[in-house]
């Protein structure tokens, strides 16, 4: 009985310490030093929230770069992957559909990241190859001339993030930032 009482006091104290005080401490640090990160890394322009730079948005208009396929159709409630296995017939079908959706006029092979759904369904990035691969489609949908195409290509380079300190992670392009830049390019 005494053991039970000690156990009860101990779990209550640990709930206060690790379940209330500790999360609130981290929240406080966020409030003070990392406001933007703590609140979802939102992109805000003129008071309007355009999205989170960490969450992929659905793009179907050929005038935009498209993100990687999503098993949850870019709805973050809840996130998730397809969980289809390596010998799954539905995975094979999905890949065929994606291949024909992305296929370029010149018949070059589609980069693998555009054929495969991401783990979270919300991957905000595509590979630089996947961005360049979509350049033709975007350029012709927007009826860009040769100079503008070159500008677009350098825009992709500008939004390409390299591996951290040259080692960690992969080169990648944030699709939402690229598309927002694309729109402002058109406005100018």
């Amino acid at each position, binding site marked *: 009985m005494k053991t*039970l009482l000690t156990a009860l006091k101990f779990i209550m104290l640990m709930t206060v310490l690790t379940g209330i005080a500790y999360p609130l401490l981290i929240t406080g640090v966020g409030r003070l030093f990392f406001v933007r990160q703590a609140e979802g890394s939102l992109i805000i322009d003129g008071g309007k929230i355009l999205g989170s730079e960490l969450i992929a948005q659905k*793009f179907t208009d050929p005038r935009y770069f498209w993100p990687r396929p999503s098993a949850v159709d870019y709805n*973050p409630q*809840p*996130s998730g992957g*397809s969980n289809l296995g*390596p010998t799954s017939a539905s995975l094979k079908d999905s890949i065929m559909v994606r291949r024909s959706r992305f296929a370029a006029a010149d018949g070059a092979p589609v980069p693998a990241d555009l054929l495969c759904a991401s783990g979270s369904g919300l991957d905000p990035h595509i590979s630089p190859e996947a961005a360049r691969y979509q350049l033709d489609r975007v350029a012709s949908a927007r009826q860009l001339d040769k100079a503008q195409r070159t500008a677009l290509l350098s825009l992709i380079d500008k939004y390409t993030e390299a591996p951290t300190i040259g080692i*960690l*992670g992969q080169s990648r392009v944030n699709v939402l930032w690229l598309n927002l830049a694309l729109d402002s390019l058109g406005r100018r």
Partner: protein
Amino acid sequence: MSTNDILQILAYVIALIVLAPILGQFMARVFTGKPHLLSRPLGWLERITYRLCGIPANHEMSWRQYAASLLWFNGLGFLIVFILQITQHWLPMNPQHLPNVPWVLSFNTAVSFMTNTNWQSYAGETTLSYLTQMAGLTVQNFVSAATGIAVFLALTRGILRKTTSVIGNFWVDMTRSIVYVLLPLSVILGVALLSQGVVQTLSPAVTVTTVEGQSQDIPLGPAASQVAIKQLGTNGGGYFNANSAHPLENPTPVSNFLEMLALLLIPAALTFTYGKMVSNRKHGWIIFAVMFSLWFGGLALSLYGEYSSNPSVGLNTNLEGKEIRFGTVNSVLWSVSTTAASNGSVNAMHSSLSPIAGGVAMFNIMLGEIIFGGVGAGMYGILLHVLLTVFLAGLMVGRTPEYLGKKIEAREIQMTILGILIPNAVILLGAGVACVLPIALSSLANQGPHGLSEILYAFSSAAGNNGSAFAGLNANTDFYNIVLGIAMLIGRFAVILPCLVIAGSLASKKVSPPSAGTFATDNSTFAVLLIGVITIVGALTFLPALGLGPIIEHFLMIAGRIF
């Protein structure tokens, strides 16, 4: 594989090998009550805990009292998480107005977090309120990890002490683990993750209108604090459904590196803590080397699998279920580490891994979570295998087996065998039964051998207290919630209790000085023998089942078959 892939693996390995011994030495000082770096700044927290809870810090417990304290405490922890879930709709800090969680799912989740498994039949962002995640799950992330450390410490004292009946004080071990190790490391990691973009707020989800004019709800919540301890405490339960594949839970390559490092750090460091505590550092290094070799072998095999093409679905590079910012090498590094340690968090969907990498993940769990293993749990798990190895070596030469001066006799070996075999039996029997029940089979999302793998993985993950999944399986059914819940309980306590019995039994024995005939446990011969015992026990038990799952799937994939 590129040069960059190799550099990333090297960076990870170097960071682990540099940091683990340092942390290990520190923990040895903490757990033996010696003065250390944090005794001044945080000592008051330890003392106030004893005072508030009425803990006589100098009073030591027999193994029975130790076990009773542990069971009562875990039982209450279960109850709190369970009650929070079934009442969360009426409680504060629920900005999404999520309904109460159904009973059966609440049972599964409460057991899952109490046993350090963190198997998730639910999706965090659409099921649990901020209060449930914080006051329920985050707390269990801490205390279930501390429970593992406590059992490891009790077992170590049993090995060390002579002719006594006491093996330490459960509350003191818990308090020191949390106050000096888990909490400070979590604060550091939590802030680091926050800086990278892991969310940490009590604000509700943000609704945005996308560029193409659709509505999208960006989930928020106190994630960074929970993600830090879920990685450090080998818990693995994601704040969001996609776990550490979610960009708000693991936003950058830096956050990924830190989360991966946190995943193996404490379990690896505890090998050095053990070496220090038993005054045989070389023995600690040998255990580390054994774990590292098994981990590295799994990594090499998995990389081979992931870099092979898949003719079945027509892919040269398999990125299904992976995130671009991490790429293949980080996904594999993670899948091997998270299953070797009983963490179970994921940064890529295991179900979509190549058959070999998925098979390695499963086999890592099946070995009993001893390749680094859970915080504390990995150490007491491998010590059971060490005892078995010493026993087998003794049989070979016809001497009474001894371990660090203690005679290993019938009672120890009976308990060792129970601790090793019961979880294995749960995996094979559970998966076997599920394979013939229509109610269990209707949960499958994949057909053919991958379907069997989904079931086998689920029972391995539950009984091994891992928590990762081949998530094609819809586990949120009454059948799986109840059966896997029971598997988690058995997998946890059917190892903990035998360990405590062994601790009590060894503590009461005399220490015999080493003689010329003593079998040394701190050299490479012993390391090879230990690796042999681990792989033979695992292979004999599970190869037939693996043959029908991932192994045959690999060959069918090469042949281009689909299901």
